């Protein structure tokens, strides 16, 4: 169970639109090593984690990663606010826009959708922790 706090974990205030950069940053939302992968990796691995301290830690990290997912979504949203048809064309945003308009969709920078194949949940503590370190080594 989660309860939402009406704030971003870290503030995002972008006043200048830049859809070109948004198309790169969106990979941190729905790319293979993005926040969607990070959050679902930890939140899925917690169930089979045998040590309660580590299982709870995975839950707390996964929770924080959901906060990061929201931050990245806000960045992409604010970078692409109120685009004119001319800007969409000029900044190379038309290929994203044709499918999603200004919606935030979990994709990698190259355009392919988020897939669970980018993460692993093996049910073995050592295996899962190694996967975490490979994916997000700065946290664990």
């Amino acid at each position: 169970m989660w309860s939402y706090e009406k704030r971003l974990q870290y503030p995002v205030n972008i006043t200048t639109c830049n859809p070109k950069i948004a198309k790169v940053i969106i990979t941190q939302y729905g790319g293979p090593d993005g926040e969607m992968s990070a959050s679902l990796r930890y939140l899925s691995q917690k169930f089979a984690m045998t040590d309660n301290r580590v299982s709870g830690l995975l839950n707390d990290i996964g929770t924080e990663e959901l906060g990061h997912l929201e931050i990245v979504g806000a960045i992409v949203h604010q970078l692409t606010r109120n685009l004119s048809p001319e800007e969409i064309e000029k900044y190379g945003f038309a290929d994203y826009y044709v499918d999603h308009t200004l919606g935030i969709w979990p994709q990698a920078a190259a355009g392919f959708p988020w897939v669970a194949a980018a993460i692993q949940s093996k049910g073995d503590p050592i295996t899962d922790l190694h996967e975490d370190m490979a994916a997000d080594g700065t946290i664990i």
Partner: protein
Amino acid sequence: MKKSAEQEKLFMKIQRVSFAMDDLRLYLDTHPCCEKGLSYYEKLKDMREKALAEYTKLYGPIVAYNVAECDVWPWNEGPLPWQLGGC
């Protein structure tokens, strides 16, 4: 609606204290007996509770469980956190 300087200051206090607690929580998960960590968490918790209560009273809820009695549901009054000026 843009936040006033006072609102922004109090909001950022909640942001900073919460960020510190988020990090410290992960440390305490694997160091549950660390006295220094535990007392620091208490100190931050006290700061957060005070700031959150004051902010909620003056500017509205950050946590939906704390929505005050009202005639009009205020939870979705903007700007929302992901919108410009909302976080």
